[in-house]
């Protein structure tokens, strides 16, 4: 999955219009970044790139790009 495709998936998870997220956005400023979207992100990472992301790793993420890094999506 490309970075762009992953961002589109994240748009869907967070309820944004496709193409909204660019990667630099801070997680704490995203209205719908909550326990539901967190679980969904973990499932997405597992499905799309086989990455096993733990909640503990997500705690250390600040931006959407950090999440993409955890999901092993190429920059």
């Amino acid at each position, binding site marked *: 999955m490309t970075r762009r495709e992953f961002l589109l*998936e994240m748009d*869907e*998870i967070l*309820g944004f219009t496709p193409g909204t997220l660019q990667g630099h956005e801070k997680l704490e400023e995203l209205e719908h970044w*909550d*326990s*539901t979207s*967190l*679980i*969904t992100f*973990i*499932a*997405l990472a*597992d*499905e799309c790139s086989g990455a096993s992301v*733990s*909640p*503990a790793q*997500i*705690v250390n993420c600040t931006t959407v790009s950090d999440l993409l890094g955890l999901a092993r999506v190429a920059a």
Partner: protein
Amino acid sequence: MTREADTLNAVRTPGFSISVGDLLRNARKLKQELVKQSNLLSIRVAILGGSTTTQVKTMLELFLLGQGIRPSFYESGFNRYSEDVLFKNPDLWNFQPDIVFIHTTWQNVLQWPELLEAENNIEGRVRQEMARFESLWEKIHAQLGALIIQNNFDLPRLRPLGNLEASEAYGRINFLMRLNAEFGKYARDHSRFFINDIHYLSAQIGLTEWLGNSYWYNFHMALSPSATMVLTRNITGIIKSIYGKSKKCLVLDLDNTLWGGVIGDDGLQNIVLGRDHPVGEAFQDFQRYVKQLQRRGIILAVCSKNDADNAKEGFSHRDSILKLEDFSVFKANWDPKPENLRATAAELNIGLDSMVFVDDNPAERALVSAELPEIAVPDVGSDVSTFAEILEREGYFEVHKIVQDDLSRAEYYNSNAQRKTSESNFRDYGEFLASLEMCAEIASFTTVYLDRITQLINKTNQFNLTTRRYTSAEIEAIAQDSSFISLYGRLSDRFGDNGLVSVLIGEVQGDTVRLDAWLMSCRVLKREMEFSMFDTLVEQCQARGIRRITGIYIPSKKNVLVAGHYASLGFRHIEQNSQGHDLWCYDVPDTYLLRSRHIRRSEELVGTASAEGAVVPSGL
């Protein structure tokens, strides 16, 4: 089938396998699809969490929508379950929930026993924990009037005391089990309080899968994502049963479903059933499970491709737990099964969506699913040892209360067969009705029947003028409010007691009573019970100086049966409003001719009035 369609099916079918990822990734699309359903029942649910609950809300919303229930939510702040109630959070009070779900787990226990602490001290801790929770529950009941769904306690994954955790009074597991027993006792004593049994659910999937330590430490989610799905499906089952959406009838195939082998070919002596054979024991245990469902009110029917005499003979097997008389409808013939299932629903006067069909044959399951999608057809496979577990897991028959009428349901349906036989011996229908020697008890709501009244209101779809649903709290309030006329009706005849079968609720405003609910069990259709209810209503109106009765017919997919009900009673059609609801009006006459000709009401038995064609003057 596409993956999206699979996901939609999974949300609608309890127990259908689905991953958390698929569910949540498609959540928005699923919701958009599910809200398009007609006749969704709207409810307000407050989730008061001892941990993070957003993911609980998301999943619960999808599963409820899958069952035709559209929730709106209030969510407490993290671990504010207690403060929101005790300090009357205005947002919660303004929300006016129908249901409060308290999502607490073992992490929310405050009074843990100390090592080697004296038994009486520990008992004091149990009482303190109970007092803490009871103060919440009582405030919710008294001030919010909402139903409560409360988790009992799951168990911690670690046991520092080893097996002593279970046996010693100061062990945490022992302590939690005592609390669970107290929670259960509270539920038994309070009809508007329901336990969400997470102690069982966590055992079912295993504590390792149930608790997600990393989720707890990092985000304070008490349960893993997959456990949250199990939790929310279970709550959906409870809410479904509260609003009368559980299944009523289990239809069973016979050969290789209730016994091993083909009775028509193998003969009675050679079917596999009983403890002499490992698979026979599994068939017997499945029969035992089915018998337990039947005993608590689930209607049983047979739908089998078989010669009828051969099929019936199977139940005379010495190891058969089920007997022929346990089945209210028995269809063993060579007709297509969908045809037999339609006929079964018609005979029982229930909707197809009230039925679950179990058959070991995948081709028959596929045929029924395709032709009658309303019927639940679980994929039971062909291994009888898993049949009961699959039915159980799917929660089709979830029940939140068992009342006496449930226990006598099978008896009713069996005596109904005698009624139908009797019917054919009469020249006309009136003569048949007279022969039934029917007697009705019609009176104002009384405490002893409130559970059954609520159950009937929330499960009746066909003879139901408004399909308005009421909570137990609302029914209790109506029963005590003199500005309502609230009537229940019981009907018995020479074949047996039909139980409490009709409910009518009207709100009095000046000299008018507005009928908000009028419904009747389809058990007693065409028996004139609705006339008897109306006779009593008119008498009560006369006694209270009420001059006008207004009624409304709110059409639904299922209640076309009563579209002409008010017209048949002599109501005047006033208008059809912009929502397509028909408004009707009846002027209470000074003298009134009783409508019911074949039912004696219990007060008439003691001579206060005569039954047939009696004229009741105003002011009695």
